[in-house]
């Protein structure tokens, strides 16, 4: 059995098992996540050594059949999912058992892996529906009124998004007579095709929570349980962003009209998210708004990439996605631990006197460094290549916006970190540090990973430079 077959089916089988055997769910889920990581690593190694790996399902050639294509971009995305998944599973396996978490998470994992590997638009649509439903389930898991309401809005928005994608696929069939990835470049060649492409992109903008269609997202990400928020913010929105990037790569120069819009929306999101994060009163909400801002930055990077076959700017976008996934997951896990220790997540109350800052605060601070994009994190390397490419292309106004966004992100994140550095008269002499928990290990591990990824950025970049299939 090939690695590709296993990496898409293993999580689905694990989903079934965890649903069937709730008492063993954590063990099965953790095992599946570990196996998934091994498979992802092995697949990445194969891509590095021998170029893209493809597999025609049932030996039926595309367009009739569906092909899996594991190229560098897919490999990086799989690795991103595997790493974040490991940490989240660790936290969830050690934390209080919540019935229903594991089947949903396993379904999310399977859908993401399938999504990254698939080279068929309709198949991707179906994968999106699994992803959307599972993500909503993860949101609703918290069980609070706010979470349920957020879950409903999330599902509605997600469904509108995926139906727009479906409409675009239907029109793509009408224009080009096919729905595999080959159709994308054909779509860019006619006005009618571009309408189809625009509809797909519009659907993805909703699903990726890109400004101004992000309205559903802060509530959903901030009301979910920590492990769920980490998955939603770090991975689920990446599914849609990945497809935007993929379409832009497949479409080449012909997707210019979409990329320009994307860049403008991205810049808007970067500033709007930052502004809301600056004013947020609750920690989770701040982190959720920061996701809006970061998605804006990534979209901007995809948007300014010019003709992706001529510039490496899209690699910066992929690197930013990777870095954001690790750092944001770490941040949500850390926030979960902070809120657990303090009993609330009000930012103004973070410097409480009964408790001294613990490992979770430290993890938050390290993750913040990655999100701001200070050296030597992967976020910094991503921004470096982004700005360097923009200098070559003369995109000074974009650079100014990126720097503004960076400064704002430093401003809103330092609001939190400075309160984490509480000490002196604000802390009672008898105050204790919260004890270490597994969640701290997961958060700190991910945050450190995001920090050190910058030093090992050569690896993902080499992977990304593997030529397309």
């Amino acid at each position, binding site marked *: 059995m090939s690695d590709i077959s296993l990496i898409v089916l293993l999580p689905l089988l694990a989903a079934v098992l965890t649903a069937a055997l709730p008492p063993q769910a954590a063990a099965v889920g953790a095992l599946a996540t570990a196996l998934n990581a091994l498979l992802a690593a092995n697949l990445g190694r194969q891509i590095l050594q021998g170029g893209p790996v493809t597999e025609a399902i049932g030996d039926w050639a595309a367009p*009739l059949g569906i092909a899996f294509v594991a190229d560098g971009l897919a490999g990086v995305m799989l690795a991103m999912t595997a790493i974040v998944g490991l940490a989240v599973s660790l936290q969830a396996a050690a934390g209080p058992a919540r019935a229903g978490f594991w089947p949903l998470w396993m379904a999310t994992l399977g859908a993401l892996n399938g999504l990254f590997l698939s080279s068929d638009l*309709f198949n991707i649509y179906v994968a999106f*529906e699994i992803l959307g*439903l599972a993500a909503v389930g993860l949101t609703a898991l918290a069980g609070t*009124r706010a979470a349920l309401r957020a879950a*409903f809005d999330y599902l509605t928005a997600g*469904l509108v998004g995926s139906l727009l994608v479906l409409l675009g696929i239907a029109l793509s*069939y009408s224009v080009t007579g096919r729905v595999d990835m080959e159709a994308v470049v054909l779509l860019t060649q006619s006005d009618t095709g571009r309408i189809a492409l625009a509809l797909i992109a519009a659907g993805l903008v909703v699903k990726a929570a890109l400004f101004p269609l992000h309205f559903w997202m802060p509530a959903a990400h901030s009301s979910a349980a920590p492990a769920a928020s980490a998955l939603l913010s770090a991975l689920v929105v990446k599914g849609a962003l990945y497809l935007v990037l993929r379409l832009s790569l497949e479409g080449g120069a012909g997707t210019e009209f979409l990329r320009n819009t994307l860049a403008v929306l991205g810049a808007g999101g970067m500033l709007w998210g930052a502004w809301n994060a600056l004013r947020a009163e609750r920690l989770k909400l701040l982190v959720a708004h920061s996701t809006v801002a970061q998605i804006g930055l990534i979209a901007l990077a995809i948007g300014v990439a010019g003709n992706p076959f001529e510039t490496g700017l899209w690699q910066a976008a992929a690197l930013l996605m990777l870095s954001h996934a690790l750092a944001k997951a770490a941040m949500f896990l850390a926030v979960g631990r902070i809120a657990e220790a303090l009993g609330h997540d009000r930012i103004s109350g973070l410097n409480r006197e009964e408790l001294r800052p613990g490992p979770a605060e430290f993890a938050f601070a390290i993750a913040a460094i990655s999100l701001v994009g200070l050296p030597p994190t992967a976020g910094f390397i991503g921004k470096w290549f982004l700005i360097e490419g923009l200098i070559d292309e003369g995109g000074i106004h974009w650079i100014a916006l990126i720097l503004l966004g960076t400064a704002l992100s430093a401003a809103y994140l330092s609001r939190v970190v400075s309160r984490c550095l509480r000490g002196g008269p604000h802390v009672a002499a008898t105050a204790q540090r919260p004890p270490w928990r597994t969640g701290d290990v997961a958060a700190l591990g991910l945050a450190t990973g995001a920090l050190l990824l910058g030093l090992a950025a050569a690896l993902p970049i080499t992977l990304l430079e593997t030529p397309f299939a």
Partner: protein
Amino acid sequence: MISDFAFLLSGAGLIGLALFRLATSADLLMRVLGLNVLAIGIAMVLLVAARGAAGTDAVPQAFILTGIVVLVGVTAALLALAERVAEARDE
């Protein structure tokens, strides 16, 4: 051909109606209805496009079948959530 055109107009009309309703209604049940009508409209448009001289293309038919099953699943989830939201509001 004229029949096809009529059904195309019908499909586009369903999509338009559904989008209009989704954009103007805050009612949870209406949103669910609107999303279902939207999906059916899309299926109709796809089916019209699948028409050819030698009959209707089987692949888009399979897409629509898949879409219908997906939709009933999502609808069930939406309604379950909507019921709980309403219940939580009553409490």
